[in-house]
């Protein structure tokens, strides 16, 4: 890997803007094209690029598979939990109007919170799929079939 100095330098330069762009897509999603799903994919891409250049072990050191599992579960819980909270506040499931005094702000809050959950789950699942493929078991032998 030592001789790929161009790859290493370029990806080190690229990774921070990719992460930043992911956050932009995440939080600009209510005004322009974007949202949790796209942001999650872009965010995961930064880590996948890192793993491609510096090796899968270097990535799993920061993000072990267990953490990825917890992150993906937490994202779903944030989405579903928002619905439960609005239900407890007296509105319907995912009825964001209960989250703030006036409906436009309440809807905005609801969307932002829910999209954070989406982004988290999508990023974690993308990385988990990549890790699963990149460090998978040896292929099944013919006699095992």
């Amino acid at each position, binding site marked *: 890997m030592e001789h790929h100095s161009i790859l290493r330098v370029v990806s080190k330069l690229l990774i921070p803007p990719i992460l930043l762009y992911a956050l932009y897509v995440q939080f600009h999603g209510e005004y322009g094209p974007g949202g949790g799903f796209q942001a999650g994919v872009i965010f995961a891409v930064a880590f996948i690029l890192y793993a491609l250049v510096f090796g899968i072990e270097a990535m799993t050191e920061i993000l072990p598979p267990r953490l990825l599992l917890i992150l993906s*579960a*937490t994202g779903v819980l944030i989405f*579903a939990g928002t*619905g439960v909270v609005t239900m*407890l506040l007296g509105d*319907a499931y*995912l009825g964001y109007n209960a989250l703030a005094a006036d409906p436009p702000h309440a809807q905005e809050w609801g969307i932002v919170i829910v999209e954070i959950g989406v982004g988290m789950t999508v990023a974690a699942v993308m990385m988990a799929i990549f890790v699963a493929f990149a460090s998978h078991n040896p292929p099944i032998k013919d006699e*095992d079939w």
Partner: protein
Amino acid sequence: MLAMIEANLPALQVVLPMLAAPICAVLGRGTRSWTLTMAVVVLTFAVSVSLFIATLDGATISYRMGNWAPPFGIEYRVDILNAFVLMVVSGIALFILPYARASIAFEISEERQPLFYSAFLLCLTGLLGVTITGDAFNIFVFLEISSLSTYALIATGAERNKRALTAAYNYLIMGTVGATFFVIGIGMLYMVTGTLNLADLAQRIVEHGDSSTLRMGFVFILIGVGLKLAMFPLHLWLPNAYSFAPSAVTAFIAATATKVAIYVLLRFMFTVFGFDYDFQAATLRHVVLPLAIVAMFAASIVAVFQDDLKRMLAYSSIAQVGYMLLGLALLSHTGLMASVIHLFNHAVTKGALFMVAGCYIFAAGTSSISGLRGIGRDMPWTTAAFVTAGLSLIGLPLTVGFVSKWYLVLAALELNWWPVALLIMASSLLAIVYIWRVVETAYLQPSPEGVVRKEAPLWMLLPTWGLAALSVFFGTYAALTTAAASRAATALISASNMLWQ
């Protein structure tokens, strides 16, 4: 708090298992995740029972997701038909889970169990969601949730037999083709009507009248759902998927997944397209009805020649789906009633039979019929449960199988289609043949020497007997299910004329 729960019952029905699934995935140990799953399944069943009681008098519960009014927002709409199906699905889950604990601990390694239960909960979420929602696109989304988790559940059988992986992959391809067809069909309907709400769709289709786009939409939906419910020539994924999945999974999906798909078909045919849509009636009579009869015979004959018990039962399931499609294709009140009753009856019967197969695998390590010689003496209780549920599959009086066949024959005779009635009875004879093969091997053939087989543990035996007993109970007191099915059929027929308010 109570008022809050009562107002949000339809949402809770789906949200409870959905919330529990991610928690389950991170719990980390088999026992803990099983306990959480069990608790959630009990609550889910309680919710479905209260929904069923609330709709028993013909009332319809409408729930607005996110408080957006239908037809723009997603509506959950519960009437007697889907409340009945919800109760069947969550009730079967209630029987499967106590059984699953020992069975899954035997078939799946400890570190995978939390993910297994998580996938199980997601599958339950999907099945309940498909049933409860009143929005066509929402049906597609939940259908995919349940299907994707089912592929994963089937693939967990790979720890015992690697062929589970190909079976799951095969199902994934076929299931995805089915889902694609289904969503293309919905797209056609959306093109014609501009709405996705089922009740609104029904009204606008009446206003719009017949057109070739509508016909294409109907055919795409029929084929898409047909793939999911293993309608006869589209059934190729089913035998492998059922035989290589872990026993508890087979019992669960055999008893619920195809039934929910039947419900979707009923909902689209009679609520959306309407009872008097000529093109639909012609398709049902000239395509679905003959295919259903072919399924009853072809699949039963193939079942007779299978050596693996689970595989035999899988082919029998294809034949039983034929009965349900036959009842629906007769296009009469009694026929619909027979379909809805058989949906419940077959869930109970086939659930019990697959659970028995799981007990055999647990105790004897095999589900090959030739490997079960003399097992009736070693495992008397398990085998007795097989005989009870087997009699119900054949359709002997005092079992649920008899009730469904009775109404099916009655529906055929009402139309003066006595050849169809004769064919129904003739196909039951084939069921006698394949059930008798197992009974004969289990009781009348000598055990192989040097084999020690002990009775299955109590926690597997009790749920198995629970379902087997239900198949006798509801066969003896048929009034309970027939009343619900009759009301559901009436609701479906009158829904064709009912307009959305």
